[in-house]
């Protein structure tokens, strides 16, 4: 690919602006006006990317976004392994999200852990008409009987719950009392709330605050001896083991991780967290709310970090270490030095195969910026990026720390726009989700899923970077992409070129 592409930044900017103008032509006037605010070409030196965000998606355009339920059940709460999360409402939401996110965990599933199970109240018409509170109460009783080792229950509301006026808070309170103060968390994450997954994250964070933190007994002895090096990992969902390949680095530098939120996490770890000396925050978008709350209420500072690729990992390890004494600072340097040979070997192997390759991204609320450094470590360049559910503070971070001058920016991109952008920009790789994967592969563009790591991973940490590099190489340099055009359908010169390779 990359034939006849503009070379200078000025040319790229002009091309990208033209491209935006072109895609907007397809829309009715009102829609074009609204969509125009979400598309831009990044100007270096600006404090944000110049796009509006966290605004309602436009009907009928094929947004890639999900809903608040997906943000709460699918992202924040679902991975908490020793609690049972009831998808409360009709069967679909729980079914489509059943084990679809790769939140790895250790436990005896069905006995003391429940992540890959689908618990639902499977609403029927009578539940809509007469309300589902009694059913919910009964469900909790049945859970207690059949899954006695569960450590808590959450109620993940689907659309109808808020519409029919059910009082899931009252049911939760009553059942908690009945079961000796058991943690039961009602979550008002109905899918119609907000504009994307994002409000679901916020609602889920608030539910932790209200139904876990606020119920803690301050006089209860800590379950472990506190240490000055206690930290909590916040906003790592352990996709393919990401949190594990991150945790190991923090522990190797001398810190003690007392909680993981929420990949491979447990209720006890949520409860441990107010004892942390520092909260280290990977996915800012989905868990900044609870981090800010802990800062205000418990005085725990929080620190964003990025464990994609050796450059950002080293930067982040030093940034985290700066909150601690020399022992930890030395620890960070020791860890960086320890993994340097591995990183050198990975880059020596893969960079020559990936140097100069271009990437377009469209992911959730963190990765559209966070992975840029990892690509750059491999000599690759991100030429377009956008978020499903970012807010302006995400675009600020993106502009100030990550993207280059002239990068194409697209917020809440529509299926049509994304397809046209890729068609014209002709990147060597697209990183996005399952709904986008096959569209671009049909077009002959190499693709990696950047939500699920395309069933690979981990990508976090040094161990993860080796997998990341290998995966990008196997996507871009797969022989399959040379076969997409039948030889008898190629222009004579083109066919000759391929044959000569």
């Amino acid at each position, binding site marked *: 690919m990359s034939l006849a592409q503009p070379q200078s930044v000025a040319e790229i900017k002009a091309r990208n602006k033209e491209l935006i103008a072109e895609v907007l032509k397809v829309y009715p006037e009102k829609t074009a006006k609204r969509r125009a605010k979400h598309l831009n070409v990044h100007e270096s030196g600006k404090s944000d990317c110049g796009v509006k965000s966290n605004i309602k998606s436009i009907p009928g355009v094929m947004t890639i976004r999900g809903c608040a339920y997906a943000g709460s059940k699918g992202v924040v709460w679902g991975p908490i392994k020793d609690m049972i999360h009831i998808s409360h409402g009709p069967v679909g939401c729980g079914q489509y999200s059943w084990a*679809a996110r790769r939140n790895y965990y250790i436990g005896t599933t069905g006995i*003391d852990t429940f992540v890959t199970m689908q618990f639902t109240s499977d609403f029927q018409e009578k539940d809509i008409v007469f309300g589902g509170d009694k059913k919910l109460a009964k469900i909790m009783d049945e859970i207690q009987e059949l899954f006695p080792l569960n450590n808590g229950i959450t109620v993940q509301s689907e659309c109808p719950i808020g519409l029919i006026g059910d009082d899931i808070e009252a049911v939760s309170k009553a059942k908690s009392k009945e079961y000796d103060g058991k943690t039961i968390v009602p979550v008002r994450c109905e899918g119609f709330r907000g504009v994307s997954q994002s409000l679901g994250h916020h609602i889920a964070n608030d539910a932790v605050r209200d139904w876990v933190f606020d119920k803690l007994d301050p006089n209860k002895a800590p379950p472990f001896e506190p240490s000055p090096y206690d930290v909590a990992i916040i906003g790592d969902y352990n996709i393919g083991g990401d949190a594990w390949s991150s945790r190991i680095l923090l522990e190797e530098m001398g810190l003690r991780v007392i909680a993981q939120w929420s990949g491979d996490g447990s209720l006890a770890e949520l409860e441990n967290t107010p004892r942390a000396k520092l909260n280290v925050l990977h996915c800012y978008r989905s868990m900044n709310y609870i981090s800010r709350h802990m800062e205000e209420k418990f005085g725990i500072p929080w620190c964003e970090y990025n464990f994609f690729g050796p450059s950002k990992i080293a930067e982040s390890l030093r940034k985290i270490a700066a909150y601690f004494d020399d022992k930890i600072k030395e620890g960070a340097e020791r860890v960086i030095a320890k993994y340097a040979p591995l990183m050198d070997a990975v880059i020596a192997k893969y960079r020559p195969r990936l140097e100069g390759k271009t990437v377009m991204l469209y992911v959730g609320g963190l990765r559209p910026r966070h992975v840029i450094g990892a690509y750059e470590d491999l000599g690759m360049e991100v030429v377009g990026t956008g978020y499903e559910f970012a807010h302006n503070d995400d675009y600020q971070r993106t502009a100030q720390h990550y993207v280059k001058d002239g990068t194409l920016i697209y917020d809440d991109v529509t299926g049509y726009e994304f397809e046209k952008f890729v068609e014209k920009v002709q990147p060597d790789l697209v990183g996005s989700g399952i709904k986008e994967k096959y569209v671009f592969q049909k077009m002959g563009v190499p693709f990696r899923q950047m939500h699920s790591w395309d069933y690979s991973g981990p990508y976090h940490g040094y161990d993860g970077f080796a997998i990341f590099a290998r995966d990008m190489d196997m996507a871009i340099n797969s022989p399959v992409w040379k076969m997409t055009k039948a030889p008898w359908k190629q222009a004579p010169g083109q066919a000759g070129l391929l044959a000569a390779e």
Partner: protein
Amino acid sequence: MPQNADNVLDHFELFRGPEYQQMLANKKKMFENPRDPAEVERIREWAKTPEYKEKNFAREALTVNPAKACQPLGAVFVAVGFEHTIPFVHGSQGCVAYYRSHLSRHFKEPSSCVSSSMTEDAAVFGGLNNMIDGLANTYNMYKPKMIAVSTTCMAEVIGDDLNAFIKTAKEKGSVPQEYDVPFAHTPAFVGSHVTGYDNAIKGVLEHFWDGKAGTAPKLVREPNEKINFIGGFDGYTVGNLREVKRIFGLMGVDYTILGDNSEVFDTPTDGEFRMYDGGTTLEEAANAVHAKATISMQEYCTEKTLPFIANHGQEVVAFNHPVGVKGTDEFLMAIARISGKEIPEELAKERGRLVDAIADSNAHIHGKKFAIYGDPDLCLGLASFLLELGAEPTHVLATNGNQKWADKVQKLFDSSPFGQNCNVYPGRDLWHMRSLLFTEPVDFLIGNTYGKYLERDTGTPLIRIGFPVFDRHHHHRRPVWGYQGGMNVLITILDKIFDTIDQNTIVPAKTDYSFDIIR
């Protein structure tokens, strides 16, 4: 450090090293407040007992690991089976993200579908404006020939009226007056994805046959010799519909497949993304009213559609996802009877080959016990085939099966000596199935991808047949219908049986005396 640039370790190896194992053990011990391992073991054993099963089957409110999805998924599946048609789901947008992901994960294909993106204000004021704007945007952006509308539970709970909304949207100029916008109300709290299939295909036919929601004259049926064919919600739609077309071709039957999504779920990688491909043309959908008869391959996917068609004067015939010799015989003979065409020798030969294969292999299947779960029709088709093979479909379970279905399954059991010790479980879920697999074990389990967890939990080897199959590739490209489809199912079952025997006889100097390389 376990990771290595020369031989990059994946997740399934990386974390087994001592560094990670130690780390995870410490995490658990220090910070997870873990249960006493003895207690975990005790509960684990208890959860395998008949006592637990009894409590499990006494559940009245809780559903655990159901084998069904919701109505709109079926509606989306139908819509993409029509030429240049885009499914438009009125309601919350997250639902559409889920349907698209679900279908893409199974077919490994793009899945195009739009939402009217209703949010809180629409919950209060209704979603009319979402419909007006949404139809206009979809029409302009994706240039569909038809937009097929269905609903999420949100729109159903607040009572949005699709007929009125679409009419208003047309008046407001969202799409031209004469533009085809069939619709179906598909509440997620009624039935399952097979119900959604039924409502949606009926919605399309009703639109074309009964006057396009009052905007055109109703079609007057002028009977011809054609046969309509409806596949139902089917994870094998790609392979199956192609096989059915081949069979119709061999027989020389003039046919219309209604909702033919076999192309759109199997597009080539050749540099072009086809949002639309193949599909029943709108003209064919309209003209289907004139057909002599309609055949439904899945009774429970067409419970409302078939009576609707029958009321228009056609003969209707329903099958239950026929798999194997007898099922295919009945299917072919029905086509022959309706069309007046003979079943060609070539198909008789294919039949003979399937019987030949069964004769060669049945000793390995005879008397084996199977548990089956899936959609109601698929369960019937598979159970019938197992009985033909001399196997016992010991447990047959459909979360979206009702008592009527259960009676039908029982009748099937009663028809064969191999069905005497078999039981049917309507409305149950996979946690019930788990109890059954522990208390009344079988040799093999047949089901979709979610059966993986039952296999891991109970040790019952899983044969993946059903929808969705996410974790094995390309199964949907092969038919399970027709004699050749029966052959595919037979081979799939046999492969698992042989693999299981081999796995169980693999320990050197202990169990490997069963060295057979010839079977």
